[in-house]
């Protein structure tokens, strides 16, 4: 499935809904959304990952980039991620830097 990332902002919460495979080829599109989201100076970034089937190390780098971009004060939520994506995040220890949830609880 082709990668897609759509951004919606409501109040202080920026939500990016991810679809498909987040690999090196898709990472620039994801980063563009992160930049856009950061522009709104949200207090929280929520990544809806239910339909994200895969994330490579380049995709993970985008998440690390998001954390840098948003600053430590902005919490990043990764919601409803599939097992392979969770595995990639856990393996590298990045799960300690984000909030992983099965369903979004604000």
């Amino acid at each position, binding site marked *: 499935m082709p990668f897609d990332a759509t951004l919606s902002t409501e109040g202080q919460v920026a939500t990016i809904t991810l679809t498909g495979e987040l690999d090196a080829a898709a990472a620039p599109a994801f980063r563009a959304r992160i930049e856009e989201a950061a522009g709104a100076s949200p207090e929280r970034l929520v990544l809806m990952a239910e339909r994200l089937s895969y994330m490579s190390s380049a995709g993970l780098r985008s998440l*690390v980039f998001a954390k840098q971009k948003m600053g430590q004060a902005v919490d990043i939520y990764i919601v409803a991620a599939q097992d392979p994506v969770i595995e990639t995040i856990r*393996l590298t*220890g*990045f799960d300690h830097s984000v909030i992983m949830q099965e369903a979004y609880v604000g």
Partner: protein
Amino acid sequence: MEELGSLLLVREPGALTGMADALTAAGYAVTSSLLADVLADRAGAPDAVVLDAVCTPAQRAGVIEHLGGALPVLVATDGDPALVEPHLSAGVDAVLPPFLPPLLRARVESARELVRLTTGSTTSAQAAEQARIEKELQIGRDIQEGFLPRTLPQPAGWDIAARFRPAREVAGDFYDAFEMVNGRRVGFVVADVCDKGVGAALFMALIRTLVRSGAQQNVSMGWMDEAGDRSGRDWLSGEASTRKRALPSIGTGPLLNAVAGASKYMTDNHLEQGYFATMFFGMIDPKDGALLYVNGGHNPPAIVRGDGTRQDLPPTGPAVGMLPGVQFRIGEAKLERGDTLFAYTDGVPEAKDEDGRFFGEARMYALLEQPVETSAGLLDRVDAGLHAFVRGAVPFDDITMMAVRRLPAGET
């Protein structure tokens, strides 16, 4: 008259009378259009265009652009000869009456030749640029190869082999193997810098150097106090029984120094670039097979036992350079005679076939669990399995593998 190709004549109403006939007589398949209509026409690009010189140079450029660009063009007028001047000064040839077929033919053909020459030279300029980029990448690749070990240490009773196949000219993967603690230990590293291309390759060079240099320094454990870990025990993970050992084993200092030092350097200096590496750094005592390791967020290497069972070596810390202020622990395992440690990067399980399906860990493990004869043989087997799986699919990720085998009793 022979057919010289299609020609579009664009003119104002009532102008250039006789031009269409003359061009036809010169050998062209002529279609006519009015200047007012040509931008609305959706006809394909002709081989050449003759434009009424009454149009402005900008209009002329617009018409050529509309027709697909880079077309041979002449302007012509049977009105005021001064009309052709702005076109001439823009480098476009012009014809004035009488419109004699042989003359028109010569002028149209010379305009075509000019386009052939100029577009041809553009292509060769692009080709030269492409060749230059490829040459630079080849230089990058050659330099990067210099960051890989030329030979692998082969301590008595051991068999070490590696495979490295970058998906592009330059890679983010690397492997390394070298003696530590004056030859009393052998260290080996398999690592994957996130992302691809030149950026990943530059960080590969940096991280490899930091790790190698950290591993080969003689360090005390004193710096660990600074890392906030004074318990003296947390550095050692694994079985509770093995954790009882109160004193660090030989080489634990350089091992931790290499990984934690590289990570700290990365987060102190390069955090904003967002690069990190997953890394497995193992250190064996060639005499008894004891293995100490740090797994920084890397795909768990597997120890394949002589009986075909498997022990995975999960992370003992996060990816190197990803997060500031992190701790790495040391994991412990042992390679008995006939055991083989297989380390790899995610390019192996994440190799895709033409339909986009992943090779996956299950296929990889199935290949590991068959009897192992030699390290190279095991890597060949996995390589062949990967080849058979991906078939014609373009490799997307770097693939790196290393096998460290402790020879069975009796083999040397």
